[in-house]
């Protein structure tokens, strides 16, 4: 199943290091503003709506 990795901006460097460890230094993933753990349900929904175009873009879905 096609999947897209999502992480908050605070994890950019670990995400890049992880991608490098797997041999995919240019691996594409979606960054969202930090933090997420303390967001309300509404805040989380907004975050999802903000990044959805980027997720679809990485999946190769054309508008």
């Amino acid at each position: 199943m096609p999947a897209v990795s999502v992480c908050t901006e605070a994890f950019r460097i670990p995400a890049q290091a992880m991608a490098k460890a797997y041999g995919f230094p240019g691996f594409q993933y979606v960054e969202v503003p930090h933090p997420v753990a303390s967001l309300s349900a509404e805040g989380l929904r907004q975050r999802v709506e903000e990044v959805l175009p980027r997720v679809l873009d990485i999946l190769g879905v054309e508008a």
Partner: protein
Amino acid sequence: MNEAQRAIEHCYAQGWTDGLPVVPCDSDQLDAMLARVDRNPEEVLLGMPQLGRSVTVRLAAINAVMAGCLPEYFPLLVSAWDSLREEGYARKGIWQSTTGTASLLLVNGPVRQEIGINSRGNLFGPGFRANATIGRAVRLTAMNALGLRPQELDQATQGTPAKYTACIGENEEESPWAPLHVDCGLAPEVSAVTAMTMRSTAHIEARHTAVPEQLLTDIAGTLARTGALLHQTVSACVVLCPEHAHLLADAGWSKRDVSAFLYEQSFVPRETLDRTGKGAVSRISLWRVARDHPDAVVDEGADPTRNGIHAMTSPEAVLVVVAGASNSGVSAVVETFGPRGGRPAVTPIPAQAPGSTQDSRQESRT
């Protein structure tokens, strides 16, 4: 710069240090380390499939040299890796976590005297080569063999000073009770090491009382700390100083009694949990959340007659050991991620072949 300094600076330039200088390792030193164990140098001691990397006996030995270990420390260190593997949290990724844990190694048996593991004064502090370098070797290996460097694959938000080194002996000679490895079925003359995943150590200042219940209630105040609660409940290793241990044992308390009492006194009322926004548990992440969280489930405590929870998972999740100097009433609570009431990862250390225990510091002088 002289040659030694240049070699040390080379290690810094390669990114092979924990911030402190390392001992440059050559093949003779590596061979001396490997000669102390009956293990294949390519054997994997700890694999991290999520990274595609692993710690082999050889990589552990190179980093042991770099950390300042003597060859005679290596059997203990290899058993420590076996214990870390059995304990399980390291290979599941806890060393990469924002929590920022360290690995505490607890050493039992005659190996403490053989190689000079401190189990008395300044237990968690500096001054003892075996404690300092064996604990350091674990972290250095994680950084160099697994690539768990801070701010990269080690995502610790703050970490703990124990990440530099955390290796202690149990003070069996001044304990009124059987030591941990004997409780777990090993003979007293067998040496053992037990790895635990730890967060903080908190001092318990209790020089004021000779009443067991007062002492233990004082200690339990730290066990019931809401700040420790990420998941539903937690575990701890309570390191009693000999004075506290004797106070309890003289009054007829066994270690099991102490664990049971501390578990009972780790009760946190629901009102206290609610005031910190931790009154419930997420049914998805199992992290503590506020009651109004969409995934919240109010977790019933173990005691149906009281509204609240015991911060400790079970009496067995409160491990009691004795260490430190016999000079005052200062004990410690080590907050652990495990064991959560299962058998601690007590791992025997093979006895060294006769003749091989010769002090390698003597060899170096000849």
